[in-house]
């Protein structure tokens, strides 16, 4: 995290490209540093996602947000890597004006777009949100019995 601080302090505010690169590096560095903490309490998670505790519990109940049991804590905790990635994505969606279905959209974006997250997604969510086994899906093509107007 110290490197992130130095990168940001050292960036030239007039050089947009350099500043943008420094912010990107700092975000990566911060995420790695914060993820070292491994888990967050539900209250902290709700705060990071900027939702109420009730909403957070609802997301957890629906299997949208994973929780883990950590020996030294009495209550379930939210894994840091999943939480931080989701929080960033949710914030982006809010900035884009989206108000509903935030977490589902954030998850599907992460799962679809980030190869690193795809592996994490499968580890955290299977058999939850990840697409069902392909053998459960059939083609929706009309059968040979269908006529031209069918």
């Amino acid at each position, binding site marked *: 995290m110290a490197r992130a601080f130095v990168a940001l302090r050292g960036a030239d505010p007039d050089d947009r490209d350099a500043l943008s690169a420094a912010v990107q590096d700092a975000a990566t560095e911060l995420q790695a540093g914060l993820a070292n903490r491994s888990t967050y309490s539900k209250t902290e998670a709700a705060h990071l996602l900027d939702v109420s505790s009730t909403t957070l519990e609802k997301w957890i109940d*629906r299997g949208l947000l994973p929780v883990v049991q950590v020996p030294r804590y009495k209550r379930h905790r939210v894994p840091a890597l999943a939480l931080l990635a989701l929080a960033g994505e949710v914030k982006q969606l809010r900035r884009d004006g989206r108000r509903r279905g935030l977490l589902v*959209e954030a998850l599907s974006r992460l799962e679809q777009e980030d190869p690193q997250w795809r592996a994490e997604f499968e580890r955290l969510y299977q058999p939850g*949100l990840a*697409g069902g086994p392909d053998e459960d899906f059939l083609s*929706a*093509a*009309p059968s040979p019995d269908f006529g031209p107007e069918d």
Partner: protein
Amino acid sequence: MRTSSQRRPPRTSDQRTESAAVWEAVVRREVRPLIDALAGKRAGYRDAYEQLRQDPCLVRTTPQGPRPFAYRLSGPLEPKVCGVHLKRGYRLAFTMQPAQDEQHEGRVVILYVGTRDTRERSRDIWRIVHDLFDTENPAAGHLRPPCCDEGLPRMDEAELTVFLDRLRRLLRGRKTPAGGQR
């Protein structure tokens, strides 16, 4: 991680009509009999299937104004389900999932096909679909906006599983799956 600036920009209606992107149109085993039951009904499913594969987000420009091929449901299912008008009173409900491979833009998952029947409510597709989601079909305010204008409809696998469990129970007692009109 891919940043927001690297994401594909949202397509406009005009771009959609010109897009050659191909979607994967799939159905779960439980729903397949509903589609098979449309053979001989002249419901236009074949055309709708092709359009779902080519571009479920298509918005046609007509003299009466823009007309979406698929529209978003109103009410509690608005984030999850889009509908398509077939011929002869049939409707098709679908949701979308992320692409499973590089060749497709995404996956269209057909949830139900049946008739719109406001007189016999127990056979009405939208009543049935809302029942399967265990939610209320709003009585009014069906605006039918284009399916993809506010993002894509999404359902997670857990919701889909619950939906299909209920559908399986519903179809168990039926002689013909698509509303008994064969």
